[in-house]
């Protein structure tokens, strides 16, 4: 019975054999047992949701690759949260948004960050100056210190990134 079950649900075996190891590995990386348990859980959820192929040779390298991606997302979120709070605190008379609105907005900000993550610094600045501040290419060119033609090139490549980016 045990074997049949494992054949039907190959992840049961993967989970049994490596969940403890993965959680310990994450705890060493994160220094936090709770977060490690969360991310270990998320790792297996991602494996379950997206692939029923169990890599035959390197299950731990496979799991830690996925866990690593989740860890990077986690750190980025922490950094962005802090930066966002700091910027809001520093802004005089910041729009008095409710905590709910702020939380929502932060989610939107995270999504934008992920979308723009792969862009070089100048292309990202040009794109945001155009889309958020409504500047002309001439004005952007002056601020970023490149030619207008370059601004247009940045805009096209930034949009193409957004249209095709799934992960960095």
């Amino acid at each position, binding site marked *: 019975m045990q074997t049949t079950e494992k054949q*039907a649900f190959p992840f049961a075996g993967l989970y049994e054999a490596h969940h403890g190891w993965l959680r310990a590995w994450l705890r060493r990386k994160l220094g936090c047992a709770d977060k490690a348990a969360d991310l270990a859980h998320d790792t297996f959820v991602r494996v379950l949701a997206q*692939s029923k192929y169990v890599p035959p040779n390197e299950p731990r390298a496979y799991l830690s*690759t996925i866990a690593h991606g989740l860890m990077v997302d986690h750190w980025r979120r922490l950094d962005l949260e*802090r*930066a966002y709070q700091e910027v809001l605190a520093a802004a005089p008379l910041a729009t008095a948004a409710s905590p709910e609105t702020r939380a929502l907005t932060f989610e*939107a900000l995270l999504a934008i960050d992920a979308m723009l993550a792969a862009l070089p610094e100048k292309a990202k600045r040009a794109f*945001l100056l155009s889309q958020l501040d409504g500047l002309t290419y001439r004005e952007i060119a002056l601020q970023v210190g490149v030619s207008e033609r370059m601004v247009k090139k940045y805009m096209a*490549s930034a949009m193409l990134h957004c*249209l095709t980016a799934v*992960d960095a």
Partner: protein
Amino acid sequence: MPGTGSGEGISPAILQEAAAWFASLADAAAGEEEKQRWRKWLAAHPDNARAWQRVEAVMGQLSPFAHAGDTVRGALGVPRRNRRRILGALGVLALAGAGTATLRLPWREWHEDAGMASADYHTQIGRIATTTLPDGSRVWLGSQGVLDMDYGPQLRRLHLYRGDLLVETATDRNVPARPFVVDTPHGRLRALGTRFAVRADPRQSRIDVFEGAVELTPTDANQPVHIVRAGEHALFDRADLLAVGQASILHEAWTRGMLMADRMRLDALAAELSRWHPVSIDCDPDVAGLQVVGAYPLRDLDPILGALAGSLPVRVVREGGHIRIVSAPRASSSTSGQFDSPPRRIE
């Protein structure tokens, strides 16, 4: 984030056109004539209109922050950190593979003859070559790679014409120590003590840094434009830096014969496999954006294709030397369990 995803089902060429139109129109000083021409393009094909919907979805994602530009730029400007931690994670992976590499790669080729100093290295499709250079640095050359070594009194120089290269530099015993550089058709990479991967493609090159840092100078730039640090990657062409991001284990795992995919697009996976096998492999636009998670042995194509067909709503069509991955919506009755659900977008 529905609607802003990967542009499923729309060909890359049309997405590129849409992005170009966006760049023409986004200038607050754009003229009416330009808009006329854009409307014509929009009406010319339903896919054009679909692509433009994606453009608008991206713009819509930004619009809640309009006039909060300073706040957003301030927050997003925070650098990606934790290089040390990222490095640590990658280090463990490298170690996990190291003990088993020789067992798994019977097809590995060793070049140890001393006469190679002035020779070109070529690897055939699907092959990996590895060697130790005179200064103790180690290099791995991937499928269809072409590499030249040129160690002189001033410089330790590798020239990667094509393909994938992984380098672990050693400290130079010469006094004074010579810089270690890798030239690609698109620029020069100067190692600042390090382990890094380089890929030279026809139109661009890519560098992933796992330890240390690498200074990047595109061929047509007269000074370095970027320092790529541990845990980061950069894409560049002859003129400029094109994109930056996290280092990818994909560009390191091939040295162990593994293809590591974490949320990798199916079209990217197909392109990757094409590098390693003597068949062209691609996929239909409507499945191109499906995400793949998995660790696959690079040399065994059939199990990989079988695994894809087993876990994604796709099937594999072979025509001579060509393999195409096409859409195959599943009949729900034929699936057996809860793990057969089609892949979902994570965000």
